[in-house]
């Protein structure tokens, strides 16, 4: 093979890749992450199209067709139920299709909201220290002692029975409605459960962020930029935040995952998103109570739930690995 030689001019012509480009390239070459991302996108978009592609209306019961097994026909109407029907004869394929969007949006929204609260509070506490730190840390400890189940129980018994009492501004309900595509009354309840989860689950993120900021704020370049006359706001935005963020990105993907599973757990206990709004969690809960007679039922929402949770995890892994130069990754990108 002929050896390629570069003159100095040629070599200097070649722009080296920027940090960001390297990270993106490495992420794009992370096979599991890309595959998982594809799965999630597929789930989400098929769910978006649910009103057009679902074979039945979402909530239409048919008491003559309860607990039909997958791939059986309705004895009365002759309609084929791909994944069977539930306890009141609603088509499970339809419901699982609709629920992908609701479950994923809920998980994404709760994780985003709680991460934002956590990052902002952790940043303030870690950067300003003093009484702000004391206030945030005490508040954080206070919140983390709240029993989630008890609070959801109270919400359930008081507010969910009277949705009009829910003090959530209409624009917020509008956003929820637009994102999940559920009717107005349901989106109120959905918003309430989501808010309750977000408001109670930011404490870990805040602790992590505070710790990161505590270590970053002592670094020499923070002092050096203060010596250049930068304001606190500028130092936070340009120097502290970007350098403290990497572990928080991984934390965020884990939080999405956590909410997906937590919603299923809460539904199992009856405190999650309420029927008829379909989520993987509450379809699973209905299936669970009829599992002894119809053992196939939990698999119908369970399999997509597990796949989605795994996929989110793999994407998180990809994001974590991409900026890490010690990771050797498969594919062409790794060899450069």
């Amino acid at each position, binding site marked *: 093979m002929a050896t390629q030689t570069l003159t100095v001019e040629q070599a200097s012509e070649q722009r080296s890749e920027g940090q960001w480009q390297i990270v993106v390239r490495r992420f794009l070459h992370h096979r599991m992450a890309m595959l998982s991302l594809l799965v999630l996108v597929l789930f989400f978009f098929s769910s978006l199209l649910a009103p057009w592609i679902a074979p039945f209306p979402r909530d239409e019961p048919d008491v003559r067709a309860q607990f039909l097994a997958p791939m059986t026909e309705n004895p009365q109407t002759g309609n084929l139920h791909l994944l069977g029907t539930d306890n009141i004869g609603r088509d499970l394929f339809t419901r699982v299709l609709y629920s992908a969007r609701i479950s994923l949006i809920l998980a994404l929204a709760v994780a985003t909201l709680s991460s934002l609260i956590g990052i902002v509070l952790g940043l303030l506490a870690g950067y300003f220290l003093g009484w702000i730190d004391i206030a945030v840390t005490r508040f954080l400890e206070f919140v983390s002692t709240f029993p989630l189940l008890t609070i959801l129980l109270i919400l359930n018994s008081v507010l969910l029975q009277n949705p009009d009492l829910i003090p959530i501004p209409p624009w917020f309900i509008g956003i929820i409605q637009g994102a999940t595509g559920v009717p107005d009354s349901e989106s109120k309840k959905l918003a309430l459960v989501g808010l309750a989860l977000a408001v109670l689950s930011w404490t870990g993120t805040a602790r992590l962020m505070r710790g990161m900021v505590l270590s970053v704020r002592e670094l*020499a370049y923070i002092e050096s*930029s203060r010596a250049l*006359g930068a304001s606190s706001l500028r130092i936070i935005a*340009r*120097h502290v935040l970007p350098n403290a963020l990497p572990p928080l990105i991984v934390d965020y993907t884990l939080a999405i995952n956590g909410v997906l599973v937590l919603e299923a757990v809460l539904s199992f206990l009856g405190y999650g998103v309420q029927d008829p709004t379909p989520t993987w969690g509450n379809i699973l809960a209905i299936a669970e109570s009829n599992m002894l007679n119809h053992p196939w039922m939990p698999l119908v929402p369970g399999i997509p739930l597990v796949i989605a949770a795994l996929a989110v995890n793999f994407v998180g892994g990809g994001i974590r690995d991409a900026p890490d130069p010690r990771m050797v990754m498969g594919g062409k990108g790794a060899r450069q």
Partner: protein
Amino acid sequence: MATSPLLQVENLEVQFKTQDGVVKAVNDVSFHVDRGETLGIVGESGSGKSVTAMSLMRLIPNPPGQITGGKVMFDGENLLDYSDDEMRHVRGNRIAMIFQDPMTSLNPVLTIGRQITESLELHLKLTQKEARNRAVELLNMVGIPSADRRLDDYPHQFSGGMRQRVMIAMGLSCNPELLIADEPTTALDVTIQAQILELIQRLQHELGTAVIIITHDLGVVAGMADRVQVMYAGRIVEEGPTNEIFAQPRMPYTIGLLRSIPRLDEEQGRKLNPIRGLPPDLINLPQICPFSPRCDYFVAGKCDATVPPLRQVGVDHRAACLFDISIDTPIPGAEVPV
């Protein structure tokens, strides 16, 4: 030229509150820097030289640190009276600082260009394009080849010496009147050290910036500074023109420092004499000469009675010692070398 000095520090006191007590890091320190002059501050670790520099910029972390007394008169105005906002306009703009460790003084996630233009945008209100042009100019000035291209590089793509050049470029970006270099060469190897010092000197001549160079390396001071002040236990114990300090040190601590380093012009076979003992605990400083427990010339009843004030011992040369001791004074009780 104006007769008042650029910087006049009077009776500066800085304290840190710790769990073990109040650390008196800087005690009653007064000095001045003239325009265009280089002042060297030397002293061992913990002698208060860095804290002095940080308090000039009001960068002492508070809590735990606090400037408890004194004045920092900069161009006729007391910086300690400034509001935080006013102080931000001084930092980087009129007084700039270069730090010890160039490896960690640059933000790893921003390009060099972004970091240099930061203070230009802050203080000179340049547009992005103007700031970039100025940044290229600055990198050329500090001797970084193909500056235009290097602006888009990240700190990890630069060597230690290059990064210190970038730090200097950042420091000088707004043409400050005073540059404080806090151990600018400590983290660099000797050849790079020489280049960096040469660079600071050259730029100082070109731009007329006054420089305070803080170091524990007497060699650096000898080559750079017009005047030297020696700090010990948060006090200035000797100050004077560089030549005077090296030729005729009058404070036993300075004499000890000079005896503990090798010189090219000395007789062969001389043993290096380290200074025995450790620096004093700055929490419980008794009202005695702080160096007296380690001093070879200690006189009981005198040195442990008062804190010796700085007194005139030569032209512009002052030392904080009660006695007239010079480098030729034999050490009492020691055998006279044959």
